[in-house]
């Protein structure tokens, strides 16, 4: 079974970028955006693996490297994609916060407030 060598690092980075955009912008539009993003990217990566294995091409056309592995290992590897996306996202949530009001672990190490003001609980 062919798998993308850099799929996991890519998903971690994409997960992180998505988490930042979600926390600072998308969350206010719709809280489900995080689920939409994780579904979209996981399905995209799965589709890529599926196509490359079915039509005998390479994942991402070989740009990010290809490895041939035992189908069982390959299946576990591919199924773990959403977890790696979440792992990357979670690191960014911890560093930059989960909402526009939060600033994450960076907060104590900066001088200016960047987070938005808190809303009264009955309005949030």
């Amino acid at each position, binding site marked *: 079974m062919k798998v993308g060598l850099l799929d996991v690092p890519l998903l971690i980075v994409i997960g992180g970028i998505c988490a930042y955009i979600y926390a600072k912008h998308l969350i206010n539009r719709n809280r489900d955006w995080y689920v939409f993003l994780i579904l979209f990217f996981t399905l995209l990566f799965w589709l890529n693996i599926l196509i490359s294995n079915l039509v005998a091409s390479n994942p991402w056309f070989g740009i990010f490297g290809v490895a041939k592995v035992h189908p069982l290992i390959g299946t576990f590897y591919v199924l773990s994609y959403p977890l790696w996306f979440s792992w990357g996202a979670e690191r960014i949530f911890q560093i930059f916060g*989960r*909402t526009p009001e939060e600033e994450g672990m960076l907060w104590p190490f900066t*001088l200016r407030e960047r987070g938005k003001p*808190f809303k009264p609980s009955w309005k949030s």
Partner: protein
Amino acid sequence: MHEEKRALVTGACGFTGGHMIELLVKEGWEVVATDLKREEHKQYYCEEGTLHPAYYEDIIEKLKVEFIPADLTKKETLIPLFEGKPPYDAIFHIASLYDYFAEWDVLYKVNVIGVKNIAELAIEYKAKRFIHWSTEGVYGEAEDSPIDEDHPFNPPNNYSKSKAEQERVLWALYKEKGLPLTVLRPAPIYGPRHRYGVYHILYALRRIGTGVVISWYPRKKTLMFPSVHVTDLVRAAIFCAEHDETIGKSYNVLSDCITQTEMLEFLYDALGIKKVVRIPIYWPIYKFFSKIAMRIITYLDRRARKRGIRPKVDVPMAGYITHQYWFSNKRLKDLGFKYIYEDPRKGLWDYITWCKERGWL
């Protein structure tokens, strides 16, 4: 005929002062309130930055108590508080420069010279009781048991040093000139309208948004969390004012201490912080990392001072993550005082709810 008791409350526009007046009025005392004028307040407090001690004049207006503005550092401005008035049954001396960001000169001027000025007038005008607000900070760090009122002073920062010095001045006046003194040493205070101190912790946790719970090993190194709800503190003050046996004594005023681990777990629940990371850590390793954190906070403090703004975390406040602050409230309890918020979690729950309703947290 029941005669109305008369009280003078200093620091009336501060957080604790406002609560003191509210309770005194509710209990039927006649109150004279004093504080700096709002414009003078700014000369002692840096108000640039997120969090700083607040000034609440609206409480006085709402309660319609007599307000005489005065500056503790200028004795002549204090005289109208006493002249031509019958002696006070109690002076609740709350006014203090409670600001970890303040320089020593200003702290000394307000907290030490200021207290001397008002205490001398209290003696001269025959006040019956002088209830003074000190701080638990005068003791410094505990070892492996809670600190009681007889523990020697070892203040860890400038603010606490100024409070220790303040007490020395007052105890000298008590011994030499008969000042009817009672000293309250509250732990960090919180409650409605509170915005400087415990609020910083809650605000920081809320801004960070991810919970970190630390368990120290060996377990005997577990750090404690002392605190007191403002309602209990002002009740304790009136309780002491009404018990003459408290003259010449000092009292720690705080809820029962719980561990920082328990407190953090509770705070994350109360603040709605769902993601919690648990870190069990060996004490020497924790000390090493906390020293690095303190250096970073000290560096940020220096940078903030250069820019003329307040840092997000005052250096002495960060001391709570490295020092053991553990105090006993036994003496006041033995006297018969009953805390409403014996478990600090009950009081903090009320306070956090209050803050959340107003968009403060």
